[in-house]
């Protein structure tokens, strides 16, 4: 095989891995959208917030230390402990659940029956609030997140593939980050867990009922508010998983929430209500933007990943507004 093909294959593989990340964030969007019709713009910031919280708890950071120091003139920074990753993760889950409950109590409850676009804008406000809140709580500097996931290139893969190239060519084997592989595994595990949850638990079935038909679900006595809390909890956990993955890869910083924005075009491709759609959409975007950057990027100045996903979604929307898996929309008057 020529190195070009192998490079392309590597790009595709890396694209798939990135796509898994996008899909992870998109998964959170889909969950909330299905259950409540809310397009949760804050999903990305939730991932960031979860990652920050995780780092903060793990490192024993004093929450709001900057503010407290500024107000009281103290010099607080750390509690001085360092928690094991698993404990920190569990505590973060608790925080995300509390967060979900608060969101339902303080925001969603008051916006029932509003138009979707109003809810969407409310989640933008929520994203702003959380961003400020997270920074205020944990500080805005870039943090290193380490929960013990493997990092760096997968040497095994490199060694295994190095021999694939045509004899004599400069090829050192395929580069795939181990973290990406873990992420892919985690994503698969998450999807399986979620589908088991929605198939075999009462709550899961209720969730699906609500997604299918709000009115009908209400009429058989499923509490919409309870469902909302549960979905936001699950979305919070999904956000945390995504946050951990992204954070381990490139540090916990604001750009994390921007990367999460990319879940939006993913959803447009995959449709807002389909979990498989979210995954496939994520993979398409991931592969697409990597391939585009690899093949066309150098000609036009690079960094096309910034916009490729959105422009792709834009063209896609014009020709197939209902998404890949959606039904044709029949309008009525």
């Amino acid at each position, binding site marked *: 095989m020529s190195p070009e093909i192998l490079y392309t294959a590597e790009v595709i593989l890396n694209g798939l891995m990135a796509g898994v990340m996008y899909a992870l964030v998109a998964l959170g969007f889909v969950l909330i959208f299905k259950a409540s019709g809310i397009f949760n713009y804050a999903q990305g910031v939730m991932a960031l917030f979860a990652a920050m919280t995780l780092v903060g708890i793990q490192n024993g950071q004093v929450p709001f230390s900057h503010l407290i120091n500024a107000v009281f003139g103290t010099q607080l920074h750390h509690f001085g402990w360092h928690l094991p990753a698993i404990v920190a993760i569990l505590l973060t889950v608790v925080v995300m659940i509390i967060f979900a409950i608060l969101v339902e109590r303080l925001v969603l409850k008051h916006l029932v029956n509003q138009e979707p676009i109003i809810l969407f804008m409310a989640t933008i406000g929520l994203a702003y609030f959380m961003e400020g809140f997270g920074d205020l709580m944990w500080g805005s500097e870039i943090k290193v997140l380490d929960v013990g996931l493997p990092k760096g290139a997968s040497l095994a893969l490199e060694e295994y593939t190095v021999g694939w190239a045509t004899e004599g060519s400069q090829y050192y084997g395929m580069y795939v980050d181990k973290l990406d592989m873990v992420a892919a595994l985690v994503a698969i595990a998450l999807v399986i867990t979620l589908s088991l949850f929605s198939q075999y638990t009462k709550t899961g079935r209720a969730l699906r009922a609500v997604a299918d038909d709000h009115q009908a679900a209400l009429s058989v006595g499923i509490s919409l508010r309870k469902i909302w809390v549960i979905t936001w909890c699950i979305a919070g956990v999904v956000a945390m998983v995504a946050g951990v993955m992204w954070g381990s890869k490139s540090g916990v910083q604001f750009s994390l929430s921007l990367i999460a924005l990319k879940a939006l075009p993913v959803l447009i491709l995959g449709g807002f209500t389909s979990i498989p759609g979210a995954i496939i959409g994520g993979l398409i975007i991931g592969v697409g933007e990597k391939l585009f950057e690899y093949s066309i990027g150098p000609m036009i100045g690079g960094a096309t990943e910034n916009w490729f996903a959105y422009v792709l979604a834009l063209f896609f929307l014009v020709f197939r507004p209902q998404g890949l898996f959606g039904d044709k929309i029949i*309008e009525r*008057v």
Partner: protein
Amino acid sequence: MNIGSKMASNIQPGEELLRIENISLSFGGVKALTEVSFDIKRGEVRAIIGPNGAGKSSMLNVINGFYHPQVGEVWYCGQKRKGLKPFQIAHQGIARTFQNIALFKGMSTLDNIMTGRSTHMRANMLSQAIWRGAAEKEEIKNRRFVEEIIDFLEIQSIRKTPVGRLPYGLQKRVELGRALAAEPVLLLLDEPMAGMNVEEKEDMSRFILDVQSEFGTTIAIIEHDMGVVMDISDRLVVLDYGKKIGDGTPEEIRNNQAVIDAYLGVPHE
């Protein structure tokens, strides 16, 4: 003179204004209309009736170009219609009201009716931006016309009320006003009296008949109240399961066995 009145200018009262020819319409395999044909003559009140789900609203949607039938032709003013968008059909003089009130909720009664007048306004964007001059003149001229409709429908006291705040019956009236503002050649009314009490129905019937006599407007109406329909319409088309089962004067329809069966719920073969 706008396109609509120009197109219809040589169609005399009693002559064919619109012809539906062999229309079939389906949505993903579900047949809404099957081989329906009928005509509407200029100046008449033509009712389209039938049980729920008979395809009446679909029929109106075909007439104003919102649905495009897979088979069949629509002839309007002696011309065969080809691939027109709904707003172009509105410009040709077909206006309508909707079964579920479709007013612009964020606007006042006046603005709603003025919007219905859009087909008669053509000041360009630049002159509208400057306002003084052409745009203002056009606005005032059309405002005057709209005020005549407000007067006609006796809704002076709600002129500047946001329509969302109006009771149902008045909203229906405003919607009729919005359709009338277009000075339509053909007016389509989709259940204009649904949900009204006897008194409101009488008012509405009076308005409909007045529209016909004052403006010479041709009217196609869907209505469930048989008493009212028989009273105000000149001819009726009866649809059932998307097929035409009757066509004629109220007297003929009353004696049509197929129609009686459909309404009495005789099982369908």
